[in-house]
């Protein structure tokens, strides 16, 4: 044990859960080793027939050394992954107040429909006559998203939000090249998500930060001052990552266009305005959406996502292939950047896009309809403002006034308590809540960004408020030790991230290297 963990343990208060058991398990908290530590060589969880005798066509390039993959039976594997799942928090289990992640309920209808053989068992390269339904579904998704955003075109292939941003910025660069006006800089607010500057750099642009004003919005004067004929685009998130609507957005759009630049919108926070505000009417030229945020496709422990990009008229011809078109024989895919797609930026991913997520998102959109989606935005904003007023007296609200679908606090309220934002979050874990987003956005100190979403009941919000208030009061009373030793009730206590980074162990290795080499 390092000094660090000794210090942490010293703060631990002895309690009933620390009583040792024979097995090492603690009630329903079951320990589970790695698959590789449970190998029964030769064992298999799948019954397969003997391959028939054949004349091999591998001619000397057969695999000789075994892979070293372990063999287990189906019951062992089901138990293994079931036990693993029990160590995870999930939306199904409780509130995830993660700002800008939109952790809403994942409807099970979506899962059922995505698994229909007519969607799931389709090979991407089947002749078009055999997949007209799939192409029709993609077209329907495109129609819904174009209507919701007000934009004339949409590129559906990007695999996630970050790739959507890449698509949008690439399209902008192509449009500027087509104008004969290449530019070299992109303006990005200080409060932006890390993917924004990372994306801009990947496309060969230099990034310039835009400061926030005292009201938490992008400073319009700074925008005007920093815009010139060398700026290719301004990337904005709206509502922004402080949970605030950029109320000067029309003026910003005008200034951007007057300078001959493009206006890119990161649509991660679309949940606040879906059905109520159309980005096209805000002067946006390109906007990506996250189907795994606003449109309920499941987060799956880190993906898959889907990041379609809505495009204005000048950018549309530069959309990546494939394009979905309709001709005399029905729907078809334009898969090459020639002919009608000759100005396309090219291909961004294999095949056609995240079809499995399109089915889920369409089921979600159809379930809600125009009226339901509008209600989603209203309830999302209502829930966030309710949390704001119930917590603003104890926590330090970063920006006064109404918020949108998420509310931002900073760590001023923890000043002189010896409790950091991190400690506060870890204490929340013992209370059965996933912490809110911490330390983001970077524009305030020790940020706590809370987004409840519309699928939380009032009772759920009231319980969350009670816990957060209780913890804030406990911090003020000076009980820093209990925060620093949190969490105590989870399958693992705080983990040593320093050791993990200094001497990375990124895989299991068999104990006997000689044995491995001999094989």
């Amino acid at each position, binding site marked *: 044990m390092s000094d660090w963990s000794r210090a942490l343990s010293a703060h631990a208060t002895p309690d009933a859960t620390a009583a040792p058991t024979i097995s090492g398990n603690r009630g329903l908290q079951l320990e589970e080793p790695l698959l590789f530590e449970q190998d029964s060589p030769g*064992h298999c969880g799948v019954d397969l*027939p003997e391959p028939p005798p054949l004349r091999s066509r591998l001619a000397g390039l057969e695999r000789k050394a075994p892979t070293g993959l372990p063999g287990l039976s189906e019951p062992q594997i089901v138990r293994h992954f079931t036990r693993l799942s029990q160590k995870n*928090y999930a939306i199904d289990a409780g509130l995830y107040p993660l700002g800008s992640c939109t952790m809403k309920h994942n409807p099970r*209808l979506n899962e059922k429909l995505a698994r229909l053989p007519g969607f799931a068992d389709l090979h991407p*390269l089947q002749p078009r006559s055999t997949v007209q339904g799939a192409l029709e579904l993609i077209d329907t998704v495109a129609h819904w998203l174009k209507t919701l955003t007000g934009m004339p075109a949409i590129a559906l292939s990007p695999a996630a939000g970050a790739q959507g941003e890449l698509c949008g910025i690439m399209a902008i660069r192509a449009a500027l090249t087509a104008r004969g006006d290449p530019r070299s800089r992109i303006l990005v607010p200080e409060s932006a998500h890390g993917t924004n500057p*990372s994306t801009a750099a990947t496309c060969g642009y230099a990034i310039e930060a835009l400061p926030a004003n005292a009201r938490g919005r992008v400073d319009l004067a700074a925008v005007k001052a920093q815009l010139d004929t060398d700026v290719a685009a301004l990337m904005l998130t709206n509502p922004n990552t402080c949970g605030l609507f950029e109320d000067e957005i029309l003026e910003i759009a005008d200034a951007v266009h007057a300078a001959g630049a493009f206006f890119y919108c990161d649509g991660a926070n679309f949940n606040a305005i879906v059905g109520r505000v159309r980005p096209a009417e805000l002067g946006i030229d390109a906007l990506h959406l996250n189907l795994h945020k606003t449109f309920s496709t499941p*987060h799956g422990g880190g993906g*898959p996502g889907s990041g379609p990009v809505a495009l204005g008229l000048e950018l549309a011809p530069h959309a990546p292939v494939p394009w979905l078109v309709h001709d005399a024989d029905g729907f078809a895919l334009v898969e090459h950047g020639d002919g009608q797609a000759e100005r396309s930026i090219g291909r961004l991913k294999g095949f056609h896009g995240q079809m499995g997520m399109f089915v889920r998102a369409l089921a979600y959109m159809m379930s809600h309809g125009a009226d339901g989606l509008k209600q989603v935005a209203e309830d999302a904003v209502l829930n966030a403002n309710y949390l704001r007023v119930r917590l603003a007296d104890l926590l330090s609200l970063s920006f006064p006034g109404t918020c949108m679908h998420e509310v931002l606090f900073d760590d001023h309220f923890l000043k002189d308590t010896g409790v950091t934002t991190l400690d506060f979050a870890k204490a929340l874990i013992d209370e059965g809540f996933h*912490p809110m987003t911490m330390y983001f956005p970077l524009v305030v100190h020790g940020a706590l960004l809370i987004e409840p979403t519309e699928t939380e009941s009032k009772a759920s919000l009231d319980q969350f408020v009670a816990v957060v208030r209780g913890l804030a009061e406990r911090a003020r009373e000076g009980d820093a030790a209990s925060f620093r030793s949190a969490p105590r009730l*989870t399958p693992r206590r705080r983990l040593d991230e320093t050791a993990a980074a200094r001497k990375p162990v990124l895989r299991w290795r068999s104990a006997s290297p000689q044995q491995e080499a001999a094989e």
Partner: protein
Amino acid sequence: MRYLPLTDADRTAMLAAIGVPSIEALFADVPVAARHAGLLDLPLAMGELEVERRLGRIAAKNTSAGSVPCFLGGGAYRHHIPAAVDHLIQRGEFLTSYTPYQPELAQGTLQALFEFQTQVALLTAMEVANASLYDGATACAEAVAMAGRVTGRHQAVLSGGLHPHYRAVCETYARFAGNRLVLQGAGPGGGEDLAALVDGETACVVVQNPDFFGEIRDYSELAEICHRAGALLVVIVTEILSLGAIIPPGEMGADIVAAEGQSFGNALNFGGPYVGLFAAREKFVRQMPGRLVGETHDAEGRRGWVLTLSTREQHIRREKATSNICTNSGLCALAFTIHLALLGEAGLTRLAWLNHAAAVATAERLAAIPGVELVNDRFFNEFTLRLPRPAATVVDRLAAQGVLGGVPVSRFYPERPELQGLLLVAATETVTPEDIDGFEVALREVLR
């Protein structure tokens, strides 16, 4: 509305607590001109039954691959997925959990991803692997970018045997990053001299094995030539199951492996979501894109896992990150892990040989048809036939007869008339002797 828990009474009480008269007041920051008063022109809310009915009708317009003899490959492969996989990934704790940034609440996801990383490293015989990328094609582009970072050079040589989608994605990424690609002409039967193109400017050579046409080669010599020139060898694998039967890239001297993992655990899904695999030499780990899970211990000395080496990533390094990737393909990676766990060493080998046997049987039967020629020297579960007529027309006529009889190469290379007669044919463990009979009969008929 079934997904919205708030009642009108709740809403009234909450508005009162907030101190505003109506919900409109909370949208006051939206410019009046941009507020949409009524409802957008879209259908109103529907119950489950209605949504099922409508989407079911759309699904019924498609011919599912399992309902007919299916011999399609070209970078996506139809395999049987054991029932346990889909049940396990639908457990709410896996399906509806977030990226494991709070490790104390996510040891399930983190341990599973650590197992995934280990499986990928073992399969490819490489030292270290990441926790997944979007798909094989973007993983390929990331590999080229990484080779540039490692060597400090800006030129990559791409084999003509590389899957055309992968090549196209590399072209797009390289154009915008200002890197140069030296592209070899596509075509089966080798003939390209990649070694001659390696010099002091080369960051990497990218080859695919088995290649797009199904051919299998030993790249050990090319690896040595690359290394002597200070360049890296990147090996692409589109059918990951092949590594159950052929020499893995790590044993040939590969520096980076980028692959598609769809064959394990993930249905065809008309092209996505899939799962990108990425592995490399340990000494390059800090230049790797994507998330990495590392082993550590907690405050009580117990083993656990965390996301690590995060300073490479966008949320910390921002414009200097190794990649802009955030969300990757977690659930697809989990499905891969579970399927491969069920197979184990013995099952993987047996499944691979069942695939090879199906392909060998199919190739022998079809190559016996007059005018049909097998192009490959070696193949695993996919091979190329040369037909006496344009393959695209043949495929359409086969489809009309209820057979998904391969992928015409001309779909990928419409501008190359000399490739028009080439047909990619894949046969997996899902192909039956009756399917092969059906394909042979139909193809003879079409070519008469």
